[in-house]
């Protein structure tokens, strides 16, 4: 098989660079190297890594960290908040959380999943799905669906708002909240707050279910296209509970290979450094984690919705489980690896999270006031892992006896997906590049593949600035062959 990542003779290749420029950080860049016959030979997705975050955390008191890490990412601060709190539960020596504290954390997390998945689908993915990709496949068939879009757009905003309200009520503020603390929670959910959230919960579940139905209708307009776009066969990983159900808050790590065979199961995530290797490559700041036992070439994996719905044996709620089975049937029972199927999987998860959130709001423990676990001996080290909206998120800390963090290691979802995203873009480039120039169509398709993964672009900075997409075609001698610009 042609290795599209590392060319044997890069000096003979032509380079095509696709680079949105002038973001402070958070810009991505795609480099396509061609061989002498203008075939795609090498593709790399460059993403600015979470540089400096570990240093930012080291030296801070451990109890401050769950709040501080929210500033790492403007799009999923709650994920970092929860993962850090889980790690610090261990660091500080706390025992199992109280029922109320764990349920509040879970509700917080499910609210985050709903709002994040709703944002992605209704704002970022649905235009792709509803209006096509500069492609004739299915484009005409989705016109009828597009007619329904205005109402869907409104639902998307309201679902996101509901998820945000869950977060606000649990952590006390819209941003900079401090709900999760080592050992538990620092705020109970009042009856009034619970009732305010519960009032709309059934509707959120119903809308989530209709969102899954919409994706299914879209996929049915061109099944082959949806299955094959950006397809890259990959290992898959996610957290599952003891029964094999996806568990976004806590569980054991399970990995399956591209054919669905089990690589490992119920791995204690605190041993992650024995299981994974974080490889560095000279052309990227972002690390490339892989399963040690399989090596770098075969051990990379996919995380996030598309992996999770296929790693698990079942989902914990009836409506979502019903939808998961439809998804499995769409692939004739075999694992599916097309990038666009992320959108379907994401909506199944949104339904799963909405159902679980509704159930928690109907659970009397959620308004309990026993919020702190019993404290044992200070341990000084802890690993916290959750399934964030974009995939598995690792937080690992060591803390000295003076309570200051001495070591911090984060593996964020996008880092876990690094190789998988590269492979998806390779698949798209190999299929759509005409060997001469970067067309509008190719740009669109590459953007669609990147959007499917919704990589975290270290966006904690987001100052205004133009964000054009620049395309340079450069020959092996560095001469500019052509240039395109969007935005």
């Amino acid at each position, binding site marked *: 098989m042609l290795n599209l990542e590392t060319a044997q003779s890069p000096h003979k290749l032509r380079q095509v660079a696709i680079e949105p420029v*002038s973001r*402070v950080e958070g810009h991505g860049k795609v480099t396509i190297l061609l061989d002498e016959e203008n075939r795609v030979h090498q593709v790399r997705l460059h993403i600015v890594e979470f540089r400096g975050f570990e240093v930012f955390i080291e030296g801070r008191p451990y109890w401050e960290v769950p709040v501080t890490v929210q500033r790492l990412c403007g799009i999923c601060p709650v994920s970092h908040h929860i993962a850090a709190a889980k790690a610090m539960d261990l660091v500080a020596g706390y025992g199992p959380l109280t029922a109320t504290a764990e349920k509040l954390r879970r509700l917080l997390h499910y609210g985050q999943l709903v*709002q994040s998945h709703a944002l992605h689908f209704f704002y970022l993915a649905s235009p792709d799905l509803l209006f096509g990709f500069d492609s004739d496949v299915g484009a005409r068939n989705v016109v009828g669906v597009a007619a329904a879009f205005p109402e869907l757009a409104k639902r998307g905003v309201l679902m996101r708002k509901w998820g945000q309200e869950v977060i606000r009520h649990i952590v006390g503020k819209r941003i900079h909240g401090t709900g999760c603390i080592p050992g538990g929670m620092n705020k109970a959910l009042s009856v009034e707050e619970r009732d305010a959230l519960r009032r709309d919960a059934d509707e959120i579940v119903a809308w989530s279910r209709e969102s899954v139905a919409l994706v299914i209708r879209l996929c049915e307009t061109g099944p082959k296209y949806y299955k094959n776009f950006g397809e890259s066969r990959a290992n898959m990983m996610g957290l599952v509970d003891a029964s094999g159900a996806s568990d976004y808050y806590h569980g054991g790590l399970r990995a399956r290979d591209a054919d669905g065979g089990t690589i490992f199961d119920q791995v204690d995530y605190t041993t992650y450094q024995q299981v994974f290797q974080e490889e560095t490559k000279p052309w990227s700041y972002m690390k490339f984690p892989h399963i040690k036992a399989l090596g770098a070439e075969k051990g990379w994996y996919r995380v996030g919705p598309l992996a999770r719905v296929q790693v698990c044996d079942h989902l914990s709620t009836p409506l979502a489980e019903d939808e998961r089975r439809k998804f499995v049937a769409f692939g004739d029972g075999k694992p599916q690896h097309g990038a666009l199927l992320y959108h379907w999987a994401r909506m199944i998860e949104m339904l799963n999270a909405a159902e679980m959130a509704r159930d928690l709001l109907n659970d009397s423990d959620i308004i309990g006031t026993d919020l702190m676990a019993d404290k044992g001996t200070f341990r000084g080290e802890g690993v916290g892992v959750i399934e964030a909206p974009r995939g598995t998120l690792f937080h690992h800390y060591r803390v000295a006896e003076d309570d200051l963090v001495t070591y911090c290691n984060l593996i964020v979802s996008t880092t876990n997906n690094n190789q998988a995203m590269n492979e998806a873009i390779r698949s798209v480039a190999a299929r759509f590049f005409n060997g001469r120039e970067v067309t509008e169509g190719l740009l669109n398709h590459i953007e669609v593949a*990147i959007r499917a993964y919704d990589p975290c672009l270290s*966006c904690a900075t987001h100052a205004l600035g133009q*964000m054009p997409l620049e395309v340079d075609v450069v020959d092996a001698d560095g001469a500019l062959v052509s240039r395109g610009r969007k935005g």
Partner: protein
Amino acid sequence: MRLAVLGWGNESRGDDGLGPALLARFAAAAWPETTTIEDYQLQIEHALDLEGADCALFIDAGKNTPAPFSFYRVIPRRSLAHTTHALPPEAVLAVYAEVEGEEPPPAFMLCVRGESFGLGEGLSPDGAARLEAAWEFVQALMRERSLEAWDEMARPFLSFAREPTAGGRPAA
């Protein structure tokens, strides 16, 4: 004029904190009929924060934008980037139009130029100076609190004709 003021940014990212810093002064001033909303970044649900407002003012830091700041009208424009991580004010206004089925309130952007955005940094000396300049300008805005006056005050900035911000291409 009921005013919704939205400021966003990350105070742990150097001059990216210009938006929240200016918004904090806005909030402390407690001007009547003025609602302040802070967030890490602008998102679709902020369209709902514009409900009932006669005017919206967006405040953010900018990179490679005019110094010390620029002030201009923003209009709805649907955009589609390759990530959910960047949503410009124009897109929020477009979302408002989609969701509410009506034109969004008139809106202005106050963009304060930043220079350094490193993690763990405070405001740069230039950023701090521009914060003061922008604050003086805000006070002038609030003394002349009408759309006509604000349009007039935006006129000197018209030479900084610019494309819509970080949103990428319009939707197909």
